[in-house]
């Protein structure tokens, strides 16, 4: 599968999911179990993505400059910093540690 085809499939799937919400009968909103699973699914996927992006290296685990950068990001989030500040600070920490040769 080419990357463009993958982008198209994933894009159309995302739009379809949004449209389904407008087509489903409103009473489905009162199905607490489905709503709860949708919430927990989002949390689980994001948590897994944090881990894989921080210590994943292809099919191996690796501790490098990303881990201290994530620590700084967590600290900033705890201090209620805005999204862009958090992301830029994490990039800066990792870039600095690599520039100084303190971390891979």
């Amino acid at each position, binding site marked *: 599968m080419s990357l463009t085809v993958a982008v198209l499939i994933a894009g159309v799937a995302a739009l379809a999911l949004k449209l389904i919400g407008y087509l489903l009968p*409103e009473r489905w909103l009162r199905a607490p179990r489905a709503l709860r699973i949708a919430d927990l699914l989002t949390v689980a996927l994001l948590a897994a*993505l944090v881990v894989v992006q*921080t210590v994943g290296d292809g099919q191996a685990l690796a501790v490098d400059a990303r881990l201290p950068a994530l620590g700084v990001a967590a600290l900033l989030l705890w201090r209620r910093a805005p999204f862009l500040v958090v992301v830029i600070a994490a990039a800066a920490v990792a870039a600095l540690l690599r520039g100084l040769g303190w971390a891979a």
Partner: protein
Amino acid sequence: MIVMRSSERTATTVSPATSEAERRARRDGLAVALATSSYGISFGALAVASGLSVPQTCLLSLLMFTGGSQFAFVGVIASGGVSAAGSAIASATLLGVRNTVYGMRMAPIVGPGRWRRLAAAQVTIDESAAVALAQSAPTARRVGFWVTGLGVFAGWNLMTLCGALAGDVLGDPRQYGLDAAAAAAFLALLWPRLRGREPLAVGAGAAVVAAAVTPVLTPGLPILLAGAVAVIVGLLWPPQQPGRETAVAT
């Protein structure tokens, strides 16, 4: 004459309280749109660093248009390349399931009309749903939804293009810490959802599962497996009710 009549009508049918609520909704929407759009630039740069071309990056923002899923898609491509495309599609799609729930909540606010609903569906995201639901008057909800949704759509796609063009000339993304920026982006998306014991437990469990299976599964699959954990927890464990936790624990 016509202009006169329409302004007269506006003056008589819209009460001062309603128009004030609509103004507030518009202000909220524009503020959220500005803040959200600005990090489209980090998405654009990350996507190009992950191996997408500038047109592919812009296509993703235009078509998919839901930040978490977009970051997930390029994150999986970054770790597994084109051969992980199936997992990238699945991760992004599962992360977009919450937009179905938003769509159900927004349908009565948006109202009928096939084309209007199609346009509304495309701009149904965390931000537009949140601003709409934060308003109390029905007309203010509608204003908040459209101003936020269309504002983020315009800004996010523009900033994606800027970020993609910048990322294209930057070179090695690791040198600028862009890989760490991706991790921080996911943490920032996750952070506001970690209120309460249950999301914390599921998040921690998913993190452990993802780390444990990363060495044995192809890139992308650990994320899907962690998602399966959440579905199993949601199906098997009864929802926790306040004051009943000790009874449930036995």
